[in-house]
């Protein structure tokens, strides 16, 4: 579903959704178009389009091994580093967030891009809550997100619920990076941020009002805290 690399719609800010062939980006695109009809949303695997864009979204679904293989094959690890270095706002979503970390336990261990320091860990086969009740894995559904006061949380109530679907969770090494936490038997990092980079484990495009608000905030964010 990659769009033709035509981004010269004059005057409109452009957001590039990076497509590396892992899953369907229809939802992300339609949610972005819904919250910002005045912006140009492009799903692309063309690095030039990404470089020209005002904002970048790095999504991802599926297994991390396959995602990392495609990211590396296409050189998107380097592209992302460069794009983040320009200072333009970049948003990682779900496996896109996990890929930014150092390493994932999924698929018997996979090295990731190492843009953010930290690990991606398995919830476990026999995951339990603090009362000893079994918890299903994947963590699928609407859970509460406890967030800080970053601009991307503007107009989103504290502990609002977002839609998650994942079996592996993130633990960042630096507490200063954590923009939100979530509890599912273990407290994990639901959002991380550093300068112009923001990343979320949940799917904002599937998280109704709260998720759409976060996307809207991102599309109006200048990348500064």
């Amino acid at each position, binding site marked *: 579903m990659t769009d033709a690399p035509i981004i010269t719609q004059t005057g409109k800010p452009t957001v590039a959704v990076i497509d590396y062939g892992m899953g369907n980006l229809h939802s992300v695109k339609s949610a972005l178009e819904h919250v910002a009809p005045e912006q140009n949303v492009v799903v692309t695997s063309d690095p030039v389009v990404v470089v020209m864009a005002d904002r970048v979204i790095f999504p991802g679904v599926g297994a991390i091994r396959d995602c990392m293989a495609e990211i590396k094959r296409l050189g998107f690890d380097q592209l992302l580093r460069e794009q983040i270095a320009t200072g333009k706002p970049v948003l990682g979503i779900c496996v896109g967030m996990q890929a930014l970390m150092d390493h994932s336990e999924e698929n018997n261990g996979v090295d990731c891009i190492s843009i953010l320091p930290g690990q991606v860990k398995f919830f476990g086969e026999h995951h339990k809550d603090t009362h000893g009740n079994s918890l299903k894995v994947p963590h*699928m559904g609407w859970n509460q997100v406890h967030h800080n006061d970053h601009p991307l949380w503007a107009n989103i109530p504290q502990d609002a619920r977002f839609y998650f679907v994942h079996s592996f969770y993130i633990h960042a090494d630096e507490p200063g990076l954590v923009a939100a936490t979530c509890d599912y038997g273990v407290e994990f990092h639901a959002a991380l941020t550093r300068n112009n980079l923001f990343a979320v484990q949940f799917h904002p495009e599937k998280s109704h009002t709260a998720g759409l608000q976060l996307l809207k905030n991102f599309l109006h964010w200048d990348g500064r805290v």
Partner: protein
Amino acid sequence: MALAKRIIPCLDVDNGRVVKGVNFVGIRDAGDPVEIAKRYNDEGADEITFLDITATHEGRDTTVHTVEKIASQVFIPLTVGGGIRTVDDIRTMLNAGADKVSINSAAVFNPDFVKAASDRFGAQCIVVAIDAKKVSGDGEEPRWEIFTHGGRKPTGINAVEWAVKMAEYGAGEILLTSMDGDGTKKGYDLGVTRAISDAVPIPVIASGGVGNLQHLVDGVTLGRADAVLAASIFHFREYTVPQAKEFMRAQGIEVRL
């Protein structure tokens, strides 16, 4: 803080119209799927399931267009089921905007299809639908079997064992429909719901037979379902999604309000 139990309105769609029948016959027209899906999205439903029961080939194209229309207006997860038999069918529905697909008969005829689908698209988007019917008599150890063809054809497969196998094959979720209950408004079959929910590590959606809000509560508390699906009680506005959630919350169930 905890994960909310999900409430999932289900649209049974035949040739572009939402229908609902008692035990799959005596169909009642409930309206336009796009309008109805949008209403559930706005009311705060946690997901939407779209089950295509269109029999004809031409009708299937209508389905793809309907899914596209729904997906562009609904910002909660959308599952599409009915007639998913090949990897191409899955790709078509995901490209049309579905977040998950539900595989039913094709899994029974070819369990490896579930493996292939999960490897290709990820477990997060593969739901295996199980139509179960009680086959044990009164006083016997309860036993449920998988039925195909809208509940008419027994397969001899033990439903609980099948669910475990499907989880091992890469299903991300089980959509369990009690064929005894479906369309009857007498409530879920809590026995099979609980047996399967306790047996598999993945989430289970209870389906089939909801007639009132207590049935939704029972599905979670007694059936131990992670999500509860219902159709006609919402379509015909006997209850709204917010009413269902308030009712569940009042009984101590964590919901998204």
